[in-house]
């Protein structure tokens, strides 16, 4: 499989970490670092990825790696980049900042925007599992519409999260950066290609990767890639690519009914009994399909 180094001993994110079975983020982050290669320094936000890879005295990382805080991965990466620039080493070393959806789109939004605006030569990767999973499935700015989380619970007066996802990719693109894309853990070769392409550009670049969470979304841990694939194929998670602010490509789909995606996940179970709410989610998919012209034929 592309993005996977043949001998696991050569993975730059080693096995033996403590991620849950079927963790989409664990798969995607390994593909990202393998694609970037060993001449890489990673600044990692607080979150599941940091916790399950670096419980002292062990680390899963075979590249230079630092974790500071929840909201400052982009600012720490800016400092690393500044230091490498000062040392004259920036041409040979990739700097990657990475975090979850909360660490990126909520608490880290300011530092991400600052990093993008200042033009640092850094790739920011957001692993989007659509809620605060490390603290126990609380709603984030990237939680989808009508999604059941512990802080947007379904009840007599609630269908779950009342708002659609924050348009994070568009916000990144609005900073006039050289490269921005969405990706999905269901397409590892696509992640690898996009990481390598992003790193071929100077300046800031941004990739948002959809990474299903079996525990938080409540599906069987053997279904991670299946669930990820359906998110894309229903139009709910469009895979798109921007270069210098221009949309240069989308993954075309034969749109499947959103129920195919929703019915696999406990977080959406309530929707299947509510035609009105279901219709609202269908509208989100339809809007994506029209906006990005996702349908084949």
């Amino acid at each position, binding site marked *: 499989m592309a993005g996977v180094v043949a001998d696991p001993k050569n993975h730059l994110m080693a096995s033996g970490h403590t991620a849950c079975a079927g963790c989409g983020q664990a798969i995607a982050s390994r593909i990202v670092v393998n694609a970037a290669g*060993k*001449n*890489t*320094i990673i*600044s*990692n936000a607080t979150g599941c990825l*940091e*916790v399950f890879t*670096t*419980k*002292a*005295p062990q*680390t899963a*990382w*075979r*590249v*230079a*790696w*630092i*974790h*500071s*805080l929840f*909201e*400052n991965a982009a*600012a*720490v*990466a*800016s*400092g*690393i*980049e*500044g*230091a*490498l*620039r*000062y*040392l004259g080493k920036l041409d040979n*070393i990739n700097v990657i900042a990475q975090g979850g959806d909360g660490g990126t789109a909520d608490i880290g939004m*300011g*530092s991400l*925007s*600052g990093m993008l*605006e*200042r033009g640092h030569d850094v790739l920011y990767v957001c692993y989007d599992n659509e809620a605060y999973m490390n603290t126990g499935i609380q709603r984030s700015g990237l939680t989808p519409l009508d999604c059941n989380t512990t802080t947007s619970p379904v009840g007599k007066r609630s269908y779950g999260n009342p708002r659609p996802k924050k348009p994070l990719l568009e916000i990144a693109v609005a900073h006039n950066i050289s490269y921005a894309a969405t990706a999905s853990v269901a397409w590892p070769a696509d992640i690898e290609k996009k990481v390598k392409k992003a790193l071929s550009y100077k300046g800031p670049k941004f990739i948002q990767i959809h990474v299903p969470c079996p525990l938080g979304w409540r599906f069987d841990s053997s279904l991670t890639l299946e669930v990820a694939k359906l998110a894309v194929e229903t139009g709910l998670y469009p895979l798109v690519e921007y270069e210098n602010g221009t949309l240069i490509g989308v993954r075309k789909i034969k749109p499947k009914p959103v129920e195919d995606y929703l019915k696999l996940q406990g977080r959406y179970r309530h929707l299947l009994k509510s035609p009105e709410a279901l219709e609202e989610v269908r509208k989100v998919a339809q809007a994506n399909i029209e906006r990005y012209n996702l349908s084949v034929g």
Partner: protein
Amino acid sequence: MKKFVEGSHAIAEIISKCRPGVISAYPITPQTHIVEGLAKLIADGELEAEFINVESEHSAASVVLGASATGVRTYTATSSQGLLLMAEVLFNIAGMRLPVVLTCANRSVSAPINIWNDHQDSMTVRDSGWIQLYAENIQEAIDLHVIAYKVAEDKRVSLPVLIGIDGYVLTHAFEVVDMPEQEMVDRFLPKFDPVVKLDPENPVSMGLLGAPDVYMETRYAIAKTMETALGVIQEASKSYSDVVGRPTGGLVETYRTDDAEKILIAMGSVVGSIKDVVDELREKGEKVGVLKIISYRPFPKDAIFEALKEAKYVGVVEKAVSLGADSPLFAEIAALLYKRGSNAVVNSFTVGLGGRDISSAQIRQIFGEMEKDETDTRFIGLNTELLEA
């Protein structure tokens, strides 16, 4: 070289001579002249450094954290709300043992919003694991910054240093100072040689999760290092004094305390005012003196006790409060004297909050009130009309 210079510009010049590779800051009054000065030095090609303008103090501290972890000497400066916004990062920098140097242009904290001087900002982060040094005047501010880098980067220490400079009183004042030559600073301060750094050639992981099985030892290690730092600060001050040819730095400074019955303790620029009143009272035959604390963290217990052990009356004069308890420096001095069996009468005086002037009359008043043993902190210079309104 002697020159007449504004405090902030003096700090910018001496920081430039310390050759930091990455500087990051966010503007806040009264810190601004320092970072403006550095930005201009870089713009003019006089300092080779990356100046990273950020969107908040939280990010300023995070940028220098990342740069320091990459093995480069760093600098940042802030004040007041900015220091509080950095607070989370400050703990993180110390926990990762990164030798960042930060100037805090000491300013009160909001509300009510107030841009003038006191020490409530840096007092709030006194337990963050940063070494804290306080300057009495611009000359001392210059010297402490050079000493700070030496101490921070000493492999026996590897901790960040905050230098407290009274906002406006020192940042915006002009003074004739002895500015060390570049050659002197270079001789005293070798290139930064980090213990560990982010380097693809030798990849390490920094900032790991410290579960209950390892966390406590990391805090103990910093506590023990603070004890070591007491010696390193003295050592660095001595060798710096040798280079510049005048005494400076150290943990504390005693002024006419040898046979003093009454000793006031203070930090920062107010010490200068107290020295004047000490001279005046000495003229009248009163046995008075002042103990200046330069190093607040680590807290130099031996040096403080040594200076106070013969005193009958001790007064702690501070520009800070602990709302709902005793003022912080007083609490530490009282605990120290109690633990060492002193019988001195110790009193707490809070002065000058939010930039209120501290007059000679107030200092004379404090000397006059020292014999009266009171449990609670006394606020000196209150406007009783406002309180009754």
